[in-house]
């Protein structure tokens, strides 16, 4: 197809505003998918995605659309993961487009994720087509939604399309607007082919299948291409597109979107956002490439130590389709052998854990998540620390910097006081307060990433009775007074509970952890002391008093066999305990605390 008849676009929306329903409508209306083949939510293939209403991985879909002017257009819908954890993937997917449909629920109005997504799309200079969805709902308020669009998003509202994806209202208008308003792709004029690899998945037979958008020239089977950032040169085996099932095409030309395969065995060989070009006559790289770095780390351990190899194999399988997920073996005194895993964010972490539990039926425990701290040493060198165990001694540290986020929090007016208190508790600075409509305000706040890892979203939901929403973008690093908190059992550090925390919170956290540990550590024949310490200084202390006897029950002839078995079982159980000095602690105790 000539570039003038190609349109590449994404759909951006807050969760549940109707992105998936609209995608399905478009596939249906363009005849890409017959009605009888329609499953609910065609593009979200994983159960987990459907359940949470989020898309983690989706294929770009090519639709052929005959416009009212009688001409046929190739419309490429490039779906994006709808969550900030995947903001780099979102930015790469958006980079493959010239325009975006912005969906806003007419009953809900602008939400936090709407704001964050519009920011991303604007950064990519995309043409935005606003769509006000769900206008058929009885409490739809189109006027208010338009006002919010203008006030909060600075998007002119007169061109907004009124639609109901569910009822099929406005679908033709949307398709016509895609053709009319989104500019056609333009060749870059480089010396040879330039294609953006914006996603990939692993196929058992074909190896890594890379999603590509051609910006200049063409890709076809048999070509030698170089991946400029990874430095690899490969021969293309196959190119094609999705409708939404993959189909082979002779070539992919300037402006077109699809996939290529090249016998690439490991997803790690294809970098997200890489530029693919002619190996013999390379063109320059496309802008915007970044190495992806995990933002959040956590130790994943099998609850049953015998499952270690099993876990290792399953992490490998997960990584095949999730190159952003990284892991390496580590061991913990408390938890045995496991893996230090890196994630793009908390949702990513939750998704990986859920998939391990559900799809792979694994029983796992995760340690307290940690962000990546930048430690500036007294000698001027900088270390990135994602594991509290590796935080250098304080005397060698000049300063510690922690990652910050810029968060958008939308809340009904009446909860604004509680919301400010929550932000303050989370060490957040409120930068702006904007009135969205007569009922709601939006707070923008800069706060540490580590503070929103645990319970932040849940707290917002509970404070606002479910009406609040939150999204964020990364906002660089700031110097912070971080300290390492250690939990000691009879003087020995229990690594699974060490954490890097802000000094103002260390004591409270130490106290909480010590109290929890006291609850779960079984009494021993000796007194057990539990201490929380910062550096060498103990900030909290609990004592598990010594047992002065074990069971002094009767034991006669009929009891002996049963009792022997019971004692053997207890003895066997003790062998599996972790010993800290003379103290034996069952692994279950640690797991209890980590779960809490």
């Amino acid at each position: 197809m000539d570039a003038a008849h190609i349109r590449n676009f994404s759909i951006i929306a807050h969760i549940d505003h109707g992105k998936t329903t609209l995608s399905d409508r478009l596939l249906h209306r363009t005849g890409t998918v017959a009605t009888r083949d329609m499953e609910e939510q065609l593009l979200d293939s994983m159960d987990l995605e459907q359940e949470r209403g989020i898309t983690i991985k989706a294929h770009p879909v090519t639709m052929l659309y005959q416009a009212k002017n009688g001409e046929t257009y190739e419309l490429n819908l490039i779906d994006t993961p709808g969550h900030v954890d995947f903001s780099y993937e979102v930015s790469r997917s958006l980079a493959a487009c010239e325009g975006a449909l912005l969906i806003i629920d007419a009953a809900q109005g602008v939400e936090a994720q709407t704001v964050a997504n519009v920011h991303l799309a604007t950064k990519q200079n995309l043409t935005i087509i606003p769509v006000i969805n769900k206008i058929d709902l009885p409490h739809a308020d189109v006027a208010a939604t338009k006002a919010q669009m203008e006030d909060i998003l600075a998007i002119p509202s007169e061109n907004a399309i009124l639609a109901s994806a569910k009822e099929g209202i406005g679908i033709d208008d949307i398709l016509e607007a895609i053709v009319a308003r989104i500019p056609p792709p333009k060749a870059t004029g480089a010396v040879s082919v330039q294609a953006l690899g914006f996603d990939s998945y692993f196929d058992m037979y074909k190896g890594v299948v890379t999603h590509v958008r051609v910006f200049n020239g063409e890709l076809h089977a048999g070509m030698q291409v170089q991946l400029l950032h990874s430095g690899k040169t490969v021969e293309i085996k196959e190119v094609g597109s999705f409708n939404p099932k993959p189909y082979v095409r002779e070539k992919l030309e300037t402006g077109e979107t699809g996939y290529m395969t090249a016998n690439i065995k490991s997803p790690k060989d294809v970098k997200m956002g890489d530029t693919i070009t002619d190996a013999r006559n390379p063109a320059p790289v496309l802008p915007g490439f970044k190495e992806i770095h995990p933002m959040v780390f956590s130790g994943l351990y099998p609850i049953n130590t015998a499952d270690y190899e099993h876990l290792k194999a399953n992490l490998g399988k997960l990584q095949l389709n999730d190159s952003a997920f990284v892991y390496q073996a580590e061991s913990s005194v408390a938890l045995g052998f496991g893996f230090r895993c890196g994630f793009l964010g908390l949702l990513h972490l939750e998704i990986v854990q859920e998939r391990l539990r559900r799809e792979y039926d694994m029983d796992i425990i995760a340690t307290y998540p940690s962000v990546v701290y930048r430690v500036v040493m007294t000698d001027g060198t900088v270390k990135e620390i994602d594991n509290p165990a590796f935080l250098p001694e304080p005397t060698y540290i000049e300063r510690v910097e922690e990652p910050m986020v810029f968060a958008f929090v939308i809340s009904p007016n009446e909860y604004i006081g509680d919301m400010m208190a929550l932000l303050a508790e989370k060490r957040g600075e409120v930068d702006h307060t904007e009135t969205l409509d007569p009922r709601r305000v939006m707070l923008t706040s800069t706060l540490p990433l580590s503070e929103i890892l645990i319970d932040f979203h849940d707290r917002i939901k509970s404070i606002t009775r479910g009406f609040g929403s939150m999204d964020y973008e990364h906002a660089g690093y700031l110097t912070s007074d971080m300290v390492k908190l250690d939990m000691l059992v009879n003087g020995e550090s229990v690594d699974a509970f060490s954490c890097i925390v802000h000094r103002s919170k260390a004591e409270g956290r130490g106290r909480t952890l010590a109290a929890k540990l006291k609850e779960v550590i079984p009494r021993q024949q000796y007194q057990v002391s539990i201490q929380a310490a910062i550096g060498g200084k103990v900030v909290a202390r609990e004592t598990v008093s010594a047992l002065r006897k074990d069971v002094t029950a009767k034991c006669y002839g009929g009891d002996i066999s049963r009792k022997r078995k019971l004692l053997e079982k207890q003895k066997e159980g003790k062998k599996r305990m972790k010993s800290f000095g003379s103290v034996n602690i069952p692994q279950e105790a640690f797991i209890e605390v980590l779960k809490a």
Partner: protein
Amino acid sequence: MFEELAVEHLYVHVPFCAKKCAYCAFYSEAASGQLVNRYVEALVREMQWVASDLKPKTIFFGGGTPSLLNLGQWERVLQTIHRLGWHGAAEWTVECNPATVSLHKAKLLRDGGVNRVSMGAQSFDPALLDRLGRVHSREMIFKSFDILRAAGFDNLNVDLMFAIPGQTLASWRQTLAEAKALGSEHLSCYEVIYEEDTPLFEQLQTGAVQVDEDLACAMYDELLLAAADAGFQQYEVANFARHTASAAAEVPDRACRHNVNYWRGGSFHGLGPSAAGYVRGVRTRNWSNTTMYCEQLERGRRAIESTEELPPLARAGEIAAFGLRMTSGWPLEQFQRRTGFDLRQEWRPEIDRMMELGYGELNQQRFRLTSKGLRFADWAGAEFLRS
């Protein structure tokens, strides 16, 4: 290693109770007259089975509630024992529930050769008796005790429990004082155990009751003091007896010899539903279900459900572990004779560890747990087990 001669100890299980107690996981069922008769006949058959390999020095009728058998049923049992020539046992104990002792029955037993009665009093506190689901009252304990004395029993045991949910230290002291006043020859006192499939265990699971370890320990301390004060000598974790002879002895002379045989790893035949036996290294357990037990014997078969024979070292470990429950510990020579292993050699690391902790004492003659070590007899025993 094993006795060459006939087995010298007999346990008989009587699986009937008027009502199941809240803490009890023993096999028992409600007594219907017909089933009890059937059981007695089956028991008579089972006695025949072991007759050729039994010359009892001790007999112990436990339960359940052996005293629940009526006069006629007891007569039948006693006749059989006489016919088999077992009635000369030096120690013959029958467990009694205070609600089921009549002078008639007590005399019948005493005249039949029974010379020791173990009375399941459990507590003197009416509220706790109720809590435990006991069928007898506090007054019945005193009354039964008088009846047994009147019938000529001069060797009586009283069973008590502590750490009962709701029991206070004051209540326990009171119970100990009343037990002392009763003047029995023997005292068995044990901490409540929460065994699966008992109402008490359920209550623990649901959080309706809690275990207060410190209180239980204080009660044990109180018990040791009170027992010594009342002239009892502790000879096992939960057992106390009077010593009447003037010469000192390793075990007090009113100790229950039948039970001592258990802790010393000696052989015994076990008869009755669910009864365990241990004969020359082979442990057996009978079918628990009374009807099934009866059917087996009626068909001319033994009613054994399972047998277990440990390899020599494991068996020795088990014998070591349970023998350490006695205050006299293990006489080294006796242990060697019984198991074929040298305690000091095979369990050197464990012995050293116990001594280091102040839990054990070793001399030329014996290894034993100290009074501190006895409080951790379960843990110490587990250390001596060998797989």
